[in-house]
């Protein structure tokens, strides 16, 4: 990439305008390497924005599912924290199949305070917040 081709496309979603400038390695007219900072590139911005759109959609769906008694609040907070079952299981020290079960409201309602606390800690929220998705 030539120095004059370095894109300066800012991220116009979430708090993307606060993104630090990235250092790029680019070539001068004579082909020698130099550095230039970039505010971002539209291709990369689009990929990141779509990843966020996907999270936001999942978040809406899971909120609805919690409201309708189809999943437990853990499902909602898991997505809110950009986790999947594998990573959440590590945080709470459970097997993946156990976490999967805890996503069912009927199982969630039987969980002990001790287990719930582990989830609350993993999500960095209070027990109260864990029980009530707003």
């Amino acid at each position, binding site marked *: *990439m030539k120095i004059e081709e370095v894109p300066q496309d800012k*991220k116009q*979603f*979430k*708090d*993307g305008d*606060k*993104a*630090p*400038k*990235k*250092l*790029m*390695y*680019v*070539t001068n007219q004579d*082909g*020698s*390497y130099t*550095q230039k*900072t*970039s505010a971002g*590139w*539209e*291709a*990369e911005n*689009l*990929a*990141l924005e*779509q*990843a*966020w759109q*996907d999270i936001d959609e999942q978040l809406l769906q899971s909120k609805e599912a919690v409201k309708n008694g189809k999943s437990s609040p853990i499902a909602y907070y898991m997505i809110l924290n*950009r*986790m*999947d079952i*594998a*990573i959440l299981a*590590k*945080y709470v020290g459970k097997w993946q199949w156990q976490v999967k079960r805890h996503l069912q409201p009927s199982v969630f309602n039987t969980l002990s305070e001790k287990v719930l606390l582990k989830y609350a800690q993993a999500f960095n929220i209070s027990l109260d917040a864990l029980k009530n998705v707003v």
Partner: protein
Amino acid sequence: MIIPFDHKLQAHCESGVTSNLLRHYGLPVSEPLAFGIGSGLFFAHLPFVKVNGVPGTTYRIYPGQIFSNVCKRLGITYRSEKFSSAQKGMQRLSENIERGTPTGCQVSVFYLPFLPEVFRFHFNAHNLIVYGQEKNIFHISDPVMEEVVQIEAEDLQKARYAKGYPEPKGRMYYIEKAPAQADLETAIQKGIKQTVFFMKSPPIPWFGVNAISFLSKQIKKYPQKLESRKATLYLGNIIRMQEEIGTGGAGFRFLYAAFLQEAAQITNRPALNELSQEMTQIGDLWRNFAYSTARICKARTSDLVSFEELSQQLLQIYHREKHFYELLGKVYS
């Protein structure tokens, strides 16, 4: 205690940390040199290792390798430690700072409040340098930030003890003794030889240059195999790994080209200069690939022709890179 530390913005976290630490010990090793000597360049596509349901793609060698390779090849005595107890891990870090040793840490970006929310995913292979502590505030030189930053002990501990692959487990690393002068020529040779070996030799399709051709075949199958939402996410992740946080552009290919140019001067081997130009062109091809991929993501299309086109672009990159590593291998044969 705050250790006087000269922070510098770099392209990539690990080669940046390595270069900044080396400069602190009087060895002026640029980021591209650290990246090349540390054999940072790689490619792998792992359809069976999924994060958030998306297959893993990487353009670099696995975490920790660049720093340890550079130290070994330049005759630097270093130490890398992990602690199962977070309390002990934080205590040892404080002791290091008290002794005046700037210390590299592997962290998850999810728990770094100085980064904007938009980047904060569970990516556990980020690197930064801790160079000071005042009570429960740590002073940080993060190579992807323009200025130094501060972080509270609680957040730093969370970042160092994040869960999930690759788990940092409080890993911290630092230089114990650096020579007054280092033999760059031999180190460059070792770095290049290992990169050629890693790119060319894996007999399995998921690693090295073969993985580029493998990914090319995989992409061709996306429209039949995946619903368009999934296909878009799969493609988007490839772009993000290539361009998003700290690669210097084109999935480290420009960083490597810069290394080859510097190496050509140091070792007085003009062949490396020609290979630098070739790698720059390959980097441009990767940028074109990312651009075409983004266009398909934007259109949310499952149009067979466009996926076929992407696959072709990757296949071309595969041939160019394969040829490149053959030539690079010959420089030191």
